[in-house]
């Protein structure tokens, strides 16, 4: 603590766990957008990650409410947000938006994987067969006509999913951006910035997950796919950074009452995480590396792209930190700052945060065992060839 902070501001109220929440939902939204680029906009070069993107989104979506629940003063009452919501509260929408998105995602995954599930059910025995039969919900018809129907429904669901994903994350930005009491949070740009950084982080995550799964399965990374992601990542990243910088520049230019403390916050309290990690290492360096990567050789190009993805993941995490923690360090007295050092142990410590961040990967590994998303390329080509036949 330094300067003067109000007595009720001695401790930070939204801790590390609340940094994780927008980070994790952001990864979900980003991964989903990649799947939509493939399933809705027919970017066929993304075929190798089209299905992986969906199961990645699901794995992270399952974990998304966990940091919130752990953080509640009364976690047992958490579901009240669904039963007795306050219509004027931005936060009350969470349960509904989350559930809606979960339903869309589950349906889409089911339709996309249905023929696989049926095939697994036909070829397995015992408990596995029972499990796959349950997963198939008894829909065993895999005639070309029904598959075509599945495909069309998938496109519809993915199309609904895009605004849902955008809403899920833009909305998280609104939770912060609509708090007039906090001069560092309050900006209408916040939802857009959150959405763009979400897309960026989710794409970066997917690239890394894809590379690691290829390496684990001893398969070559699809160069065209990775470079295509590289390009999309670059476009979204440049938009994201521009808006993040624009926000600070307009605050600086308008120089309202709170600007001197915001300036102090950025230069004295968040210089490493804001200028160092969020802007330099998490945005400028990846922008350069991604450009270089597209012109480099196959192996080095891939390495540089993946390195950029890793840097971006760090950068977006720092951005979440700078918003959530930074905004609370700044006292509403505009005269001081509250310090925050997360403890290692305890409900809101570093350890549970690490566990929560690791959990989606465990879930992803399990999901990938049950419904392997790898056969995408063959299946994708099948779908599109049948598309051509139908339209012809």
């Amino acid at each position: 603590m330094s300067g003067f902070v109000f007595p009720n501001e001695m401790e930070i109220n939204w801790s590390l766990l609340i940094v994780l929440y927008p980070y994790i939902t952001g990864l979900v939204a980003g991964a989903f957008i990649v799947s939509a680029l493939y399933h809705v906009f027919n970017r066929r070069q993304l075929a190798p990650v089209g299905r992986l993107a969906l199961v990645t989104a699901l794995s992270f979506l399952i974990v998304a409410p966990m940091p919130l629940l752990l953080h509640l003063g009364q976690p047992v009452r958490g579901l009240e947000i669904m039963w007795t919501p306050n219509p004027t509260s931005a936060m009350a929408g969470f349960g509904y938006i989350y559930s809606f998105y979960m339903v869309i995602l589950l349906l889409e995954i089911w339709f996309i994987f249905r023929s696989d599930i049926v095939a697994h059910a036909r070829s397995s025995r015992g408990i596995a067969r029972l499990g796959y039969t349950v997963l198939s919900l008894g829909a065993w018809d895999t005639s070309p006509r029904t598959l075509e129907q599945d495909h069309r429904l998938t496109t519809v669901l993915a199309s609904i999913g895009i605004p849902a994903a955008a809403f899920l994350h833009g909305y998280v930005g609104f939770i912060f951006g609509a708090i007039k009491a906090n001069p560092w949070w309050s900006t209408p740009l916040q939802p857009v910035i959150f959405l763009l950084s979400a897309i960026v982080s989710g794409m970066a995550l997917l690239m890394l997950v894809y590379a690691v799964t290829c390496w684990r399965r001893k398969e070559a990374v699809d160069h065209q796919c990775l470079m295509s992601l590289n390009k999309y990542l670059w476009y979204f990243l440049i938009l994201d950074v521009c808006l993040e910088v624009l926000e600070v520049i307009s605050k600086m230019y308008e120089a309202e009452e709170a600007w001197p403390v915001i300036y102090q916050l950025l230069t004295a309290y968040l210089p490493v995480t804001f200028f160092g990690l969020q802007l330099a290492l998490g945005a400028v360096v990846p922008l350069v590396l991604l450009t270089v990567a597209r012109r480099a050789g196959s192996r080095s190009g891939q390495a540089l792209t993946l390195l950029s993805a890793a840097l971006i993941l760090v950068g977006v995490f720092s951005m979440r930190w700078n918003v959530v923690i930074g905004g609370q360090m700044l006292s509403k007295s505009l005269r001081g700052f509250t310090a925050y050092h997360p403890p290692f142990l305890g409900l809101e410590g570093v350890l549970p945060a690490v566990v929560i961040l690791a959990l989606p990967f465990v879930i992803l590994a399990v999901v990938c065992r049950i419904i392997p998303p790898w056969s995408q390329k063959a299946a994708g080509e099948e779908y599109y060839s049948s598309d051509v036949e139908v339209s012809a």
Partner: protein
Amino acid sequence: MRLSRRDFLVKGVQLAAGGLVATTVVGKVWPAGTTLAQGKEAPRDWTRVWEEHEWAFVVDTRRCIGCGRCVVACKKENGVPLEAEVTRTWVEQYAVMADGRTEVISPHGGQDGFAETKVTGEMSKAFFVPKLCNQCEKPPCVKVCPVAATYQTGDGVVLVDRERCIGCRYCIQACPYGARFLHPELHVADKCTWCYHRITKGLLPACVQTCPTGARQFGDLKAPDSAVKKILEEQPSNVLKPAMGTEPQVYYLALDRVVI
């Protein structure tokens, strides 16, 4: 008797409507809550009782001596641990220096007074500012509560339903005045209620009762000979952070411009 689906639906609606009318009539003749134990006492219409008053709080910064008795009284009255940093009300000490700097302190919310204050340099003026919940007419905390656990009463006080609060702390973020906190023992949002349990019984809030100099005054703007109303009509007053659009109902007399 055979009923077609249409008849069944029509009959069902009629029956439901009849039931509704019957219960309403019974309710009017024999209002809920009028039990034998209560005898023939006229039932009170609580929605009207709620709007009988319009409470207002006046803080005169020239009178506050920074003794901190109000903070102690508040904590004791409202079950906020004395040793906790968090508090429903607090006192800030301002020292405006000759070179234009402003130094503000509020050690432990000022509950132990300001005996050990040391200021370096030449001081041009100094004063104390008691702070508490402004019971905003347009409270951002009420707007953001996801489960409507925090609400505004008919007489203009913002309260927290402890049975309902989920402890998400969004209201704490939304309050521009730092008036809210998470209760360290109950793990629900907590705030000044102007001692709602006292004022609804005709008593004064604990801090007002305790204040030895009359720096804190409290009253009902709807009362015929309201003292606070007279003050607000006769003297220039101000509120904290008026640009927030929250319309506070704690009115400050002689509020210096350095106070935020």
